[in-house]
Structures are given as C-alpha cells and as structure tokens.
C-alpha cells in the first residue's frame, strides 16, 4: 500500500501552491534585495547594486532602533502571554461555576480582526475621548498620551497584543495539558513531589512540544506585527516596529530594493531566533534525553 509516488502525487497540489505563492515571491524579494529600485529615482528600473542595500542597512539607526523595539515588544508580549496562557489553561482544566461562559468570553478577542483590535484600543486610549486616559488622570493624576510618550505607546501595544493573543496560547496549552497522561503525575505525587516539582519535572517536559510550537507561532506573528499597532498609534514613536519600518520604506518612499533587503534581514533574524529557541527547548542539547 505504501507507494511513494502516490504520496508525492497527493502532496503535489500543496507543493505547487507553496512554490508559487511562498518560494517564488521569496526568490523575487531576494533578487530585488540586491538591486536599487526606486520608481521616483532618475532610473526607475532595477539596477544591480550588490551589497549596497545591506551596507546602508547596517548603518541605518532607524532600522536598528526598530529591531530593538520589536525585540522588546516580542519579549514582553510573548513572555506575558505564555505565563498568563498557562495559568488560565490550568484554571480551565478544573471545574468551577461559569466555566463555559468564561471560556467563550475569554476566546472572543481571537475572533476579532487585528485591524479592529487596533481600532478598539485606539478608541480606549485616545486622549480627550477614551476612558483609559480619563480614569488614569482622575484616579492617579497620570498623563497618558501614547502620541507623546514612546514608552506608553510601547506598553499599550504590548497590553493590546496580550489581550488579543493570550486566548490562543490558553487554547494550545489546554490541549497540551489535556493530553498529559494522569499516571506520571499521580506517581510523582505518591513519591512525595510537591506542586512545583510535579510542574517542573512532569508537566513541563510533556508540554514542551506544545510550548515550542506556540512560542514559534507567536514570535513570527510578533515580529511581523503591523496592522493593529499601526491602527493604534499610526507608527508613532515607541511603536516603530520592523514591520512598520518596512512598510514606510516600501510604500510611501517606494524604495523597493532597500525594503526587500530589510525584509530579508528580518526573516534571517526570525529564523535564527526560532532555531535557537528550538535547540534550547526541544531537548537536543547534549546530556538531555529526547
């Protein structure tokens, strides 16, 4: 029954679509990344310029600043989402009154489009209109203006991302927790392990594949975040993440070559980060049992 040709035949539609819509555009961006292509320049065609785009990129303070901001955003948002998601998933494994209702309400943000999430949060935090600046000013005498204070804009973006994506992490963690067999946990308890030891030596190793997949997906999403942050702060200070910087270079400035080179380096950083995380979490380090 196991015929490799049948396997390849069944896989071929997916492979063709992947090649056409995934790999071919990547090759095109790779090609454009080594060219100068600005429709408003004197020569509006593609002009090969070797490594000039990358030479410009490594000295571009705006780009380097955007990478730092994106890293801060990703670390704080994903860290909070994983911790919160795990706590909520643990809570949802137990029975309590109103559990079904809580699960529905908790999952609602996942169904909202990112651009609508940005719009909702903009309405919440817009100075002179939104309830958040109003109550912060009234109760704590705190001036809250995301257009004026970069740190406030960054933290608001982090909180918005946590609000939007924690349900996703909760659902994946819940699936992972439900798949853990009861016997090892019960054995550990019989052997006298406390709650932390059960979590560290039994639950966490079983959750490792789920955790890895979830963090991968969230890292890739966080690094390419554009729409909701753009809607929230319009690319203002504190929210000029890499995705927004690429958008600014490619669309208003129409500097396609330079924009492609930034996209390639962002992809490179994402892949390296995910790979390092894979090595750290997957148990392939020497001395660890797979």
């Amino acid at each position: 029954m196991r015929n490799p040709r049948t396997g390849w035949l069944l896989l071929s539609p997916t492979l063709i679509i992947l090649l056409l819509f995934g790999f071919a555009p990547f090759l095109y961006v790779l090609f454009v990344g080594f060219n100068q292509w600005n429709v408003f320049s004197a020569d509006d065609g593609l002009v090969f310029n070797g490594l000039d785009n990358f030479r410009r990129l490594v000295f571009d303070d705006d780009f380097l600043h955007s990478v730092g901001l994106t890293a801060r955003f990703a670390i704080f948002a994903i860290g909070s989402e994983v911790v919160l998601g795990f706590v909520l998933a643990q809570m949802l494994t137990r029975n309590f009154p109103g559990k079904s209702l809580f699960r529905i309400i908790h999952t609602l943000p996942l169904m909202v489009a990112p651009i609508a999430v940005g719009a909702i949060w903009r309405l919440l935090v817009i100075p002179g209109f939104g309830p958040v600046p109003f109550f912060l000013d009234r109760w704590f005498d705190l001036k809250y203006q995301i257009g004026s204070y970069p740190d406030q804009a960054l933290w608001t973006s982090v909180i918005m991302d946590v609000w939007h994506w924690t349900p996703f992490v909760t659902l994946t963690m819940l699936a992972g927790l439900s798949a853990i067999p009861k016997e090892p946990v019960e054995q550990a308890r019989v052997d006298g392990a406390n709650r932390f030891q059960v979590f560290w030596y039994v639950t966490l190793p079983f959750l490792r594949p789920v955790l890895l997949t979830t963090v991968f997906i969230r890292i890739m999403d966080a690094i390419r975040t554009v729409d909701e942050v753009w809607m929230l702060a319009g690319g203002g200070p504190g929210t000029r993440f890499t995705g927004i910087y690429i958008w600014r270079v490619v669309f208003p400035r129409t500097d396609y070559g330079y924009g492609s080179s930034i996209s390639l380096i962002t992809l490179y950083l994402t892949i390296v980060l995910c790979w390092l995380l894979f090595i750290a979490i997957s148990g392939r380090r020497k001395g660890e049992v797979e």
Partner: protein
Amino acid sequence: MQEQETSKGKKEINGFLPFYTNAFDRVFIGVVILIGIHLLWLRFMEPALPIEAATVISLVIGYIVVRRG
C-alpha cells in the same frame, strides 16, 4: 566523532557543537554564520579589510562546521 541514528532514521553526529546535529543542521548553521559574518563585517570591518575577506573566513568556518560540527 560519535555517530548515532535517531528514531526517524536520520544520522546525527556528536561534534564540537553543544548539540547533536544532522547534515541539514550543519549546512544551515554554516549559512547562518556566513550571513552573520558578512553583516558584522559590513558594519565594523569594511573600512579596514574588503568584504571578500569575510567570504573567505565564513567559508572556512562553514567547512569546519559541516565536517566537524
């Protein structure tokens, strides 16, 4: 250099890298190092030495990683 076969039939070696690697891993690490060295060279070393030196260095490191990593 120890060689072992995983449950999926892939050959992994125990080289100088801090984890077990198969051939794809080592080529991937070589490419990552190549790009990284070139970017760092453009930023810090290019006024002193041309970019071709970075290519030579990263190819040598890549070869060592692929053979012994």
